[in-house]
């Protein structure tokens, strides 16, 4: 779909000539997010600098019934920030200001394009931090974190993005700019903030976010334990939780990942281990010390080959560096891979790890694992050779089998990455027709014309806002490489 010259000039009048991208090569930069399977360039990209401009953009798009696709830093993993039906992409990268820091009220208000880590950097000197820490936090935007309800290693203790959002300003698909929630607790009426976080841009465009800031803990202790097998490490995870500890983070790597990370960053993980558990405890010093001893003892009781404690901040940073760069380190294992984000109840970790090994064996593919073991959120990395179409088909099959196995164990198809176009077809595995119908009706409240990020989050996009029609997501030709 090509946009009329009238629409393009109306948009250019709003954002100025430097705030609009119309050239094919310029738009190509925006054709996908980090899930590069799904490609769809928008007809035009606009980069507003204010909420007023966003409101005006939505007004133009509504008047001409043009789809709108929001985009933060483009680090999503679900094909959420690409334009399957063309239209106008609204990139928030120029709206990246910190509007207010109010430490007395323990919160900050920021524009959606602000990089996650920049907020923590702005307040760290005064002893505060923003808790949601997706592995992409060096580059991902807070608006994107809000839209996908992003998680991260430390959400085991601190909760995911939604637990840290106090207020939002959004421009809905109806074109109204509204403030939802705010600094004071328990705002009157429905929890529209909680409902809108994780809506993946289908309710509207986020133009400001008020987030909770936390006081940095007095002490942090990072423990690393190596095990012979993933199953033993999984049993240790259950034992730590059952012993009454909620570590700030509880991360696991399997042998394939250990090798890949060691080859890259020199994180110094034990090379002969079948699994590594990274346990981070934080809080008052007395508690952290006592829990560190308890956790280390539990690791040994469950057959740990070695248990080490980071002695200083530099060692701690090194242990984490490897974990945070895991997705990149996979490049050493394989040319191409599918990254999964499924969840099982944490007591089912040993079951799903056995099942995963069987699936990998059945398809003849390596499945590497790095994941948030503490909350049962898996990130299997299904490796394949992209020069071989048969391998890709097997990788997709393994992917589907894994999702079905997780659902059969009582889990979810996505723990923190979101749905986007990638998982839309999988939602019926997890939810029934009535559940999805309800979600469609909710979407219709915010976006009756179906203009906001069409094709994302739900299995199909009903034109009239009514009814659930299972269908594959609308994808451009050649979307599957």
């Amino acid at each position, binding site marked *: 779909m090509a946009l009329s010259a009238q629409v393009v000039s109306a948009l250019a009048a709003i954002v100025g000539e430097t705030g609009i991208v119309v050239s094919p090569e310029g738009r190509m930069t925006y054709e996908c997010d980090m899930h590069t399977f799904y490609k769809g360039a928008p007809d035009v990209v606009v980069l507003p600098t204010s909420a007023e401009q966003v409101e005006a953009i939505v007004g133009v798009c509504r008047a001409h019934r043009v789809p709108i696709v929001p985009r933060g830093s483009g680090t999503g993993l679900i094909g959420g920030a690409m334009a399957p039906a063309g239209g106008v992409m609204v990139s928030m990268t120029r709206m990246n200001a910190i509007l207010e820091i109010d430490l*007395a*009220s323990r919160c900050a208000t920021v524009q959606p394009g602000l990089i996650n880590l920049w907020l923590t950097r702005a307040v760290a000197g005064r002893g505060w931090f923003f808790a949601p820490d997706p592995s992409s936090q060096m580059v991902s935007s807070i608006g994107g974190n809000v839209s*996908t309800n992003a*998680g991260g290693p430390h959400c085991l203790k601190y*909760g*995911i993005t*939604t*637990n840290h959002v106090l207020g939002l300003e959004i421009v809905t698909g109806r074109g*109204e700019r*509204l*403030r939802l929630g*705010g*600094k*004071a*607790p*328990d*705002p*009157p*009426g*429905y*929890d529209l903030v*909680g*409902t809108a*976080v*994780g809506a993946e841009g289908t309710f509207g465009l986020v133009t400001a976010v008020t987030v909770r800031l936390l*006081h940095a803990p007095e002490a942090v202790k990072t423990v690393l334990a190596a095990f012979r097998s993933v199953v033993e490490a999984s049993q240790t995870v*259950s034992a730590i*939780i059952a*012993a*009454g500890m909620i570590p700030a983070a509880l991360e696991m790597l399997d042998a394939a990942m250990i090798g890949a990370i060691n080859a890259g960053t020199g994180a110094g993980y034990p090379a002969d281990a079948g699994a590594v558990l990274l346990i981070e405890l934080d809080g*008052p*010093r007395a*508690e952290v010390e*006592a829990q560190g001893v308890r956790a280390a003892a539990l690791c040994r009781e469950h057959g740990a080959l070695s248990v080490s404690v980071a002695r200083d901040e530099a060692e701690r940073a090194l242990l984490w560096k490897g974990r945070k760069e895991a997705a990149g380190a996979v490049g050493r294992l394989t040319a191409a891979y599918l990254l999964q984000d499924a*969840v*099982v*109840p*944490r*007591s089912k970790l040993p079951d799903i790890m056995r099942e995963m090994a069987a699936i990998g064996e059945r398809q003849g593919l390596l499945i590497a694992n790095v994941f*948030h073991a503490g*909350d*049962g959120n898996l990130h299997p990395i299904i490796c394949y050779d992209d020069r071989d179409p048969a391998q890709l088909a097997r990788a997709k099959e393994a992917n589907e089998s894994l999702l079905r196995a997780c659902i059969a164990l*009582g*889990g*979810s*198809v*996505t723990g*923190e990455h979101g*749905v986007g176009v990638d998982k839309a077809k*999988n*939602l019926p595995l997890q*939810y029934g027709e*009535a559940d999805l*119908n*309800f*979600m469609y*009706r*909710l979407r219709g*409240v915010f976006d009756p014309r179906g203009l906001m990020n069409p094709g994302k*989050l739900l299995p199909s996009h009903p034109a009239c806002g009514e009814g659930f029609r299972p269908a594959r997501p609308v994808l451009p030709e050649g979307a599957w490489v």
Partner: protein
Amino acid sequence: MDPALLDRLRASVGVAHVLTGVDLSPYVVEGRTPKAAVFPGSLEEVAAVVRHAGAAGAPILPWGGGTGAGVGAPTARTGIVLGLSRLRRLVEHEPGDLTATVEAGMTIEGLQTALRARGQWLSLDPPDAGRATVGGVLATNASGPRRHLYGTARDLLIGVTVVTADGSVVRGGGKVVKNVAGYDLPKLFIGSYGTLGVILDATFKLRPVADEERLVAVAFERVQDAGAAVRAVMASDLIPSALDLLDGPASAALALGGTPTLVVGFDGLAEQIEWQLAELAGLVKPLGGGEVTALPAGTWPRLACAARDAFDAPAAVMVLSVLPTRVADTMARGAAAARARGLPSAWAAHAGVGTMTAALVAEPEPGGVGATLTEWRALAREGGGHATLLWAPLAMKSQVPVWDDPGPAGRLMQRIKAQLDPGNVFNPGRFVAGI
């Protein structure tokens, strides 16, 4: 009462589970008697009741333990009470998962007892836990002092099953602690006051029971000094589980000496609690605080209702939300506003969070209640927040609106209600913005 509807309800849930006539006295709210009270015994029966009532145009009033039944504006029409008391099982508790699924009619106390037997708990401590049910607590977003550290229902609820207006059973969320598949429906139902559907069951994140828990009090002469102590604790390395502030009358209600009192809770390992207690003593002393005194565990459940319980017959109870830094100031000025009209009041705050409950008595001066409540609401707004008239006689509710103005977002809320409950079946007129 339409006899045909009554027959259908009896056929759906059994004659023994449909109350009419004088049996309805426990369900009279603000002098208004419902048409009937029905008690379905299964998910299917709830759905059948909703369908029958909806088809007959009879409003449905979901009912848990009745502890919050008087909260809100009076419903526009009398309806049918849908009681959840027969749906009160603990469906699933897997300690290794730190999650539990429970039916809506189970009381909070019943749930906590079952969970504690296996070393875990739901970190939510609303008032009246012996009668308040899981469904009711979710629908009213009730909370207690431990919300300071552990948050509210929105931080704990990971899955919910609801019967919606068309009688369909909708499941939102799931059983796992991380799940971003689809919209976060559990959030929509928390605090919705039964206006969008009937909550049938809920799945929660749990916490392990701490090794130890302590509650301590520090007396002050002036509420402003206690407020300064709250800010000092918030800026320190302490991690209290509760940080409450009581004014003189509320402190007297808990037999704590009758002067402004800071009440602080801690949980965790014994050694870290001892360290925190010592730090607390050092923090409060220069601010005019007295000794740090241990309180019995029995004080915990009384904290959330300290203001309400300060008087035998309060004329009104209001909940105010402000920025945490404005709590002590709001309390002092609110009490002064009542006193200026000759009215005693009592105030209890979850001070670190910014919520407070204030109760007002009308003896000996009957007038001035409405003007005081209106001034309190203005104070809440000045403090960056809002106020809800939690309890008052019907006549007062017509003078002072129950709910604060949600602003332009109220239109969005009205559209949500219209879209999801087009027949206006659930609790019509009870909630914000006429919903």
